[in-house]
């Protein structure tokens, strides 16, 4: 027996000791020069023109740079010159001239004005099909080129010389610079892109060149992105952290454990997830900060076809559905009380020039909520709507279809709210994945959806242009269609005065939210940022990227 047994035992012990030996050199190299971050999922692209969401903004904001950089202090964003050294705006407010710094790409080539022009043209080129092309529509000739009605030469972006860039707008657009700071307008290197083609360039990080503070040195999908300091960056001497690890994990519990054990330096959370982190606030190694977010969650009403129930084209029914939602309860249930109940669509972090928009406009739903403050009144309203559509007024026979992808809590909540307040039923349909969800949504197989919108820049228009019938986005959010709204929105084009703009914006918001009830805003984000105590100057802009750590340092 002994011999054979000895062999087996030997193998097992060797196995164990190598494993245990591994524990010894457990060197989690958290030097003071390395920043450890997490991301919920991988960026879909490293192509600045092809960006869609925060994951890629976060990375590209660190590796590439545009004319301006958004700096953020106490939840207020402001612009700081970056690749641009200075700029002038013509008297009519339509022509912008930028003087560029003499900066270099990571391969040593100069950053030129033409590369900024290339970026705008590439963004708008119809066959590239970039999602954010409409961000550039303020530029003269841009919309025409993008929609195939004009040519690239007619687009108002010119390189006057190697370091002078001129952009001409169709209308005087007061918030244009805020837009221009977006990743979408970062310069591009056509010489590199044309070598591999736009399709491959999308995720081809090995061939990228960088004009930002960091270079990407490794990217493993579902794993980790590693950034190293770019020594060719014009302001490299101000960049303190030499390495950034961005690990992909979506699990809050993992993030909390990472934070606790010092393997993660900062994380931004909001909504229900945030409550998982509450325990950390008491820790002496971690700082917690709260700031208003730039997003609104809302319930979509299918106004394309009226939905599967055929009821949602009726304004009274939509009104009852919007008013029946107890937004405080919604915030408690869905966001764990960590968000904010909202009664208007534009989040309160948005300013027009220097005036806070929400302070000016107030909660547009308040008066309607006061009027219909009981379940009986709401039911009467719903029944009135049913009568108008010529349907039976038996509320218990009404069933609305709520479409979602992965079982979220919103459906469960709405089902209960609508049953108890309106006496109607909600059926929850769960699509197995995004592709099926989109197929069902496009086929109008829904009455209700939950959705959220993150603003792209600091101006109410980033929220209110969603509801313009020709805007291209309203069709995803229920298809609100009002000529009155379109006309009113059109008057913004030649209005530059802040007070006048505020007035038009608030009229627009009232129209879609509290008169036509084209959408039911329910909650707003309040971001909670947890950072390692020794991490300084780690910024969290409201718009664009979640994090900006280019000039952060660890002490």
């Amino acid at each position: 027996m002994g011999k054979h047994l000895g062999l087996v035992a030997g193998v097992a012990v060797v196995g164990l000791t190598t494993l245990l030996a591994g524990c010894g050199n457990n060197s989690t190299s958290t030097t003071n020069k390395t920043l450890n971050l997490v991301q919920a999922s991988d960026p879909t692209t490293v192509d600045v023109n092809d960006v869609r969401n925060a994951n890629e903004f976060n990375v590209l904001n660190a590796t590439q740079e545009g004319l301006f950089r958004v700096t953020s202090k106490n939840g207020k964003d402001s612009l700081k010159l970056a690749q641009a050294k200075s700029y002038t705006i013509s008297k009519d407010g339509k022509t912008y001239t930028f003087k560029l710094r003499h900066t270099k790409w990571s391969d040593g080539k100069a950053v030129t004005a033409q590369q900024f022009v290339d970026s705008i043209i590439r963004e708008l080129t119809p066959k590239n099909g970039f999602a954010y092309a409409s961000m550039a529509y303020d530029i003269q000739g841009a919309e025409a080129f993008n929609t195939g009605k004009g040519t690239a030469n007619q687009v108002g972006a010119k390189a006057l010389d190697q370091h002078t860039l001129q952009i001409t707008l169709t209308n005087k657009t007061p918030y244009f610079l805020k837009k221009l700071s977006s990743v979408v307008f970062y310069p591009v290197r056509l010489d590199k892109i044309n070598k591999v083609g736009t399709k491959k360039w999308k995720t081809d990080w090995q061939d990228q060149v960088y004009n930002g503070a960091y270079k990407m040195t490794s990217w493993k999908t579902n794993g980790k992105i590693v950034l190293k300091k770019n020594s060719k960056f014009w302001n490299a001497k101000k960049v303190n952290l030499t390495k950034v690890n961005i690990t992909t994990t979506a699990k809050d519990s993992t993030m909390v454990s990472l934070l606790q054990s010092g393997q993660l330096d900062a994380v931004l959370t909001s909504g229900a997830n945030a409550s998982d982190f509450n325990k950390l606030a008491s820790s002496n190694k971690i700082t917690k900060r709260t700031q208003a977010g730039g997003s609104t969650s809302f319930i979509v009403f299918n106004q394309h076809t009226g939905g599967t129930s055929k009821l949602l084209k009726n304004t009274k029914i939509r009104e009852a559905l919007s008013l029946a939602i107890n937004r405080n309860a919604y915030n408690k249930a869905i966001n764990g009380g960590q968000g904010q109940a909202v009664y208007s669509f534009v989040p309160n972090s948005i300013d027009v020039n220097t005036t806070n928009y929400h302070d000016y406009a107030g909660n547009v739903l308040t008066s309607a909520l006061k009027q219909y403050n009981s379940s009986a009144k709401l039911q009467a309203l719903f029944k009135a709507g049913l009568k108008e559509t010529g349907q039976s007024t038996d509320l218990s026979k009404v069933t609305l279809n709520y479409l979602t992808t992965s079982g979220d809590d919103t459906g469960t909540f709405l089902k209960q709210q609508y049953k108890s307040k309106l006496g109607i039923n909600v059926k929850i349909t769960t699509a197995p994945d995004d592709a099926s969800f989109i197929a069902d949504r496009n086929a109008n197989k829904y009455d209700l959806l939950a959705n959220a919108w993150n603003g792209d820049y600091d101006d109410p228009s980033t929220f209110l242009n969603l509801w313009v019938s020709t805007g291209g986005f309203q069709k995803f959010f229920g298809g609100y269609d009002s000529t009155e709204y379109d006309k009113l929105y059109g008057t913004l084009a030649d209005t530059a005065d802040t007070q006048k703009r505020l007035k038009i914006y608030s009229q627009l918001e009232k129209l879609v939210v509290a008169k036509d009830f084209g959408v039911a805003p329910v909650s707003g984000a309040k971001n909670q940022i947890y950072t390692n105590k020794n991490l300084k100057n780690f910024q969290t802009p409201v718009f664009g990227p979640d994090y900006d750590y280019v000039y952060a340092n660890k002490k």
Partner: protein
Amino acid sequence: MDSKFNFVSTSSATDTAEQPTTPVSIGFWQSAGHKFSHDRLSMTCATILIILVLVAIFGPMLSPLNPNQLHVNQQNLAPSQTYWFGTDHLGRDLFTRVCLGVRISLIVALVATLLSMVFGTIYGMLMSYFGGWVDSCLMRLIEIFNSLPSLLVTMIIMTVLGNGIGTMLFALAITSWAGAARQARGLVLQLRDTDYVTAAIMLNTPLWKIMLRHFVPNMMSILILDIGQSIPANIFAEASLSFLGLGIQAPNTSLGILISEGQNQMLQHASQLYIPILVLVVIVLAFNIVGDGLRDALDPKFKA
């Protein structure tokens, strides 16, 4: 199996020590039942299982609470007299939800197992009964299904057919019937040439009757063992898939959903994670022990 020979078993049950040498010709099932009922651990676990099933079925009636009712002011409560297991992040009563979850998990596991066993057995019996080209054709199909990476296939099916209990049953069954079919085929190959089957065929007995009368009883013990093994496997599969978001979807619930919801609360309200985990482990452990006990009782090699 003939009842005439069974009367001896009563005496054997009283004290086996007194007649140690000559094996008593008691019926196979009586002997197995006797052995199983004297296996204290297995009996305990079988009892636990029965209790759990009863709680899963009738538990929600014991509590006045509705497992699907949200209470925004009673979120994440610790276990108490009203909320025996506490409440979840939406303020729903966890005890009744666990009952529902166990119900769904058990239904999925049992029905998927039965589906694959019944289909596999009939398939296997038919192919070996007919033999020849039918057999070799159907055998190819078994080989294909046997070589499928079952987890991948389950996931593909869940994606294609959508999430839901029905889909899950189908996906779990389709990836596991081939084993049962193989086994049934092997057994029928042995039985086909026995005198009583030949006799039955001569007498023009319909096929289904031969299958039911002669094949199935002879396979029973092996089938029971297979069932004992595949139920825990299916409980795992359901929990894991639902955990990954590929399985059953909220607002439906199952142990997998409860575990994945509990995982989000792991740090602050650990009981929301540990309770469903504990229930799952107890169920699977009990199934495994009962399965072991059954094997000891049914396997002739394990005659004590």
